[in-house]
């Protein structure tokens, strides 16, 4: 068993905007690229060019369809597609840490990032079982547990320009759907964004107190019905000849 810090100095994490995520997987591959080359063992791929190919990813995008229920004002609501990027949520009560038999999994006191010390990891997989989000993956080549590091080797890295000291998924996201910051500081940009947009915990019933937050999609297909908008299309004339009369009158005023 491994213990969690009673509290952390910061709660660094991601805020992911489901209203603008187009499901392009840019974050997935950027993460794969950075974390293959950096922290710990490379993220390996099995049967890379064959059948049943698979590999280690620290971040994946899942796509869901949502069928809103019929309502009196919308009898046949259209189905929706939601893209959900998912990586370690750096939970305050991280069950993956407390379950670790060797102390390899730990939560950093300074910033709350949950990490795996690969030299102490025996690849037992208990943490992956304990994580309700499926956010940890055992690397088949190296036999160690891999997970999102929140790019701990980028965010403080003095070899990077200051503007680039963010996780690689945040830096690369084309639609600006990923934000990084201290969710423990209510004045931080990310905390304000969460407050403004009604940010949510993923699966709060699990009691893990995830640090990462999701911004819900805005209501879809909410264009007002035509009767509300009708004044904007009030006809200027019923007959084509009337149109030309209107045209002459309007041109005079120009």
């Amino acid at each position, binding site marked *: 068993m491994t213990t969690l810090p009673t509290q952390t100095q910061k709660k660094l994490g991601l805020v992911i905007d489901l209203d*603008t995520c*187009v499901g392009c997987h840019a974050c997935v*591959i950027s993460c794969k690229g950075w974390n293959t*080359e950096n922290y710990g063992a490379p993220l390996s791929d099995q049967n890379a060019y*064959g059948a049943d190919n698979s590999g280690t990813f620290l971040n994946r995008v899942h796509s869901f369809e949502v069928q809103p229920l019929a309502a009196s004002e919308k009898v046949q609501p259209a189905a*929706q597609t939601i893209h959900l990027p998912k990586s370690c949520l750096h939970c305050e009560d991280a069950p993956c840490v407390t379950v670790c038999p060797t102390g390899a999994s730990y939560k950093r006191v300074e910033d709350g990032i949950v990490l795996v010390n690969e030299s102490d990891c025996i690849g037992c997989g208990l943490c992956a079982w304990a994580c309700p989000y499926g956010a940890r993956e055992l690397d088949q080549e190296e036999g160690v547990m891999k997970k999102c590091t929140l790019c*701990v080797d980028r965010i403080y890295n003095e070899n990077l320009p200051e503007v680039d000291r963010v996780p690689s998924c945040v830096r690369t996201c084309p*639609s600006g759907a990923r934000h990084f910051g201290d969710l423990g500081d209510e004045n931080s940009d990310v905390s304000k964004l969460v407050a403004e947009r009604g940010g949510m915990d993923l699966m709060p019933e699990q009691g893990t107190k995830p640090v990462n937050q999701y911004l819900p999609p805005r209501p879809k297909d909410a*264009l007002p019905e035509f009767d509300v908008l009708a004044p904007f299309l009030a006809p200027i004339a019923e007959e084509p000849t009337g149109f030309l009369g209107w045209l002459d009158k309007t041109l005079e005023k120009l």
Partner: protein
Amino acid sequence: MNQPKIDLSPKVSDEIRKTTCYMCACRCGINVHMKKDPLGDLKVAYIEGNRDHPVNQGVLCAKGSAGIMQVNAPSRLRAPLKRVGPRGSGEFEEISWDEALQIAADWLEPIRKEDPSKLAFFTGRDQSQSFTSFWAQNFGTPNYAAHGGFCSVNMAAAGIYTMGGAFWEFGQPDWDYTKLFMLFGVAEDHDSNPIKMGIGKIKARGARVIGVNPIRTGYNAVADDWVGITPGTDGLFILAMVHCLMKAGKIDLDYLAQYTDAPVLVNCDEKSPEFGLLMRDEDGKELVIDRVSGKLTAFDKPGVKPDLSATHRIAGVTHRPVFHKMAERYLSDEYAPEAVADRCGIPATRIRAIAAEIARVAFEEEFELDIEWTDFRGETHKTMKGRPVSFHSMRGISAHANGFQTCRALHTLQILLGTVEVPGGFRFKPPYPKPAKAHPRPHTGMNPGQPLNGPHLGFVQGPEDLAYREDGVPARIDKAFTWENPMSSHGLMHMVISNAYAGDPYKIDTLFMYMANMSWNSSMNTRGVIEMLTDKNEETGEYVIPRIIYSDAYSSEMVAYSDLIFPDATYLERHDCISLLDRPICEADAAADAIRWPVIEPDRDVRGFQTVLCQLGAKMGLPGFTNDDGTAKYEDYADYIVNHERRPGIGPLAGWRMGENGTQSGRGGVNASQLDNYIENGGFFVEHIPEGANYYKPWNTKYQDWAVGMGIYDSPQPYLFSLYVEPMRKFQLAAEGHGEHQPPDHLRERIKATMDPLPIWYSNDADNKGDEYPITALTQRPMAMYHSWGSQNAWLRQLHGHNPLYIPTKLMKEHGLKDEDWVKVTSPHGEITVPILEMAALNENTIWTWNAIGKRKGAWALEEDAPEATKGFLLNHLIHELLPPKGDGLRWANSDPITGQAAWFDLKVRIEKAAVPNESQPSLPPIKSPVGTGPKNLAWKVGK
């Protein structure tokens, strides 16, 4: 707590090399991080977006980051190949470059001396068309084009003929000011990062996004409102909105009068040989009635206020303004929402609601920017009026046989609202705006041993520009610029192989292609094309298409069907220029171009294809590639990029040209250090458009003067938008029997019906037997993959390793289907049996799949049991380049009758549940891989 100490500031890389991505057509700037491997060699370690780059501003998509897996892909070709087995077997031997170039020259030189048209040179996903066309011109063949004919020509040609610019990388919504953004069409590829960035930006501001697409994925998934339209009916939907907006007077009369041909007078005498043509003065200027003087005058005279309503009668002929004809047509009940709703699959009240919202935002949220500007009539405007409604479209609306008119309809809607080139609307990127008339006309003048008489492709202005030989035979192998498809500005790559096979209009000797997977996903009727490529003449034992030369960096399906292979370098191993002469990377506020340069050296015996063309051109003594003393003019492509001048002072790159006082932008002499200047600047060049010149560009004196200074035009080119495309009327007039150039009789009725100078809509269902095959089948390309070139990528193929056929809930129920069942899909042309998944957010009569995931066994260095080859599939087997027989004894092309664009998305099918086969059907036998297969596992790490 015993926290391990970790290094928070590891060294990121040993060097950053900045170049341009080539994982799709977006052309983002990338930082390639190089690290020393244990042997001390610099290797590509990590790729990220370049923050300074105008296209992507630091972001990068999945493809871009996965580029590292492209440069180590096992499918990379290693050396020139000569076919030793039968075509399609995949049996090759590696040969030297000397031998490869000698073989090619031995084939091509006799052709050039006798009949250069026996070479058909078509380039696929080429980003160097101004160069490859220059090579083809110097060779002298009329048979050159890139792949626009099966991709984008409806979009590009409709835009350029209508408003002198188009969607895709030629223009962009005004992301800074737009409040309502409407996106049409399936496919999510071109300009993909800028669109994602733009959507993110406007949504953060609370702007509304409306997606019109039968499929709710990607951009449509985040759209606030989704219009799941019936495929092929976008034009009808748009014209219904035009009807509503005109009827409500929610159109910008001031804009229409000043900047468009709406007030231009049209001959309305049915008996006149000029019926339907525009009135012009002696200089060819369009004539309008001036509202101030009431007199007939050229549109561009100082002080003229063109009248949208006044008519003019002269010599017994009444002339009415274009706008009258528009009112007459679009106010008709034929276009009322109630009349179109069922066909479009959109309730009439929804059509009205969307039109009303457009009207509200365009006119109630009108705004002004405090920027003074002067128009081409010399009038100074104190402010720039903005209308914050913008539109964009993907290929979906254009890949239909009514696609040209549909794209025209969309531009007409934009123009009626006065929202093109205004703040908040749609904006051109240099070198656009540029009207069709300022582009070349097509050239096919051929003289054996000599260059062609001008550029191959262009914009016809009437029947006199069609491309026929003196004996009446179409001049081009693809029959571009003929009565069958007069305005085929990009050529018809999809017809080359079938025409060459049929010897219609004539036989060729050598087919030369680049980056075009014609024996697989880039052809309609894949199996038929394979047969055409492998069929032999019974008498001679020769292949019907005698010789095929192909260049690709990878072991694609097309390699196996070629006789001689030039292995290309990957994009990190080569020079390229993304040129203003071609498809540049400009932004609405700036002209820009870029280069690629070898950030790594190839570890194989390969050469960049453009370098090979320089060398082959010199070997054959082509004039543009040879000095007077017979030596090679350009050692390689880099040499060409720096030293070639298209016109004096204008070269492939606009940055750091040599002037009298050092380097300068746009025009200037050759600068030997130009590529170094680009590399120092991150691989690109940007010149910002000055303030006051960046909106209203087609009519803005300051922009026009700036463009001349940059070398974009040689003189100012102000023009009117063409709501009424007069060249189309000229083709109609010919079909009605006027003029010396006459179409064949069997085409007269179709030309009269389709070449309408004002946008119309017509159904393609009957031609595709929509009554027997009621479901439309579409493809999209995943954002994380680029055509076939993504399937070999070890990372990307984990995202999209196979492609189920997505079926809407209603059809699932009707056919008793559940997820992971298989269905047989039948079209008038063929059948396939494939795995399915249900999708609810889908038009109820549409099925679709991801394009080009399916692979032929043996290609791309994949193992033969890879899911791409066993479960993946192509819809191409269901599509034919010809329409099903109509019973008139003729076979009509499955193309737009105006431009010849391949009508991929007119595909009609029916489905039935099938027993689960071993593999997707049809399953073609494996081809032998010239490069073997990839390693089993990968743990790719360059540094320690």
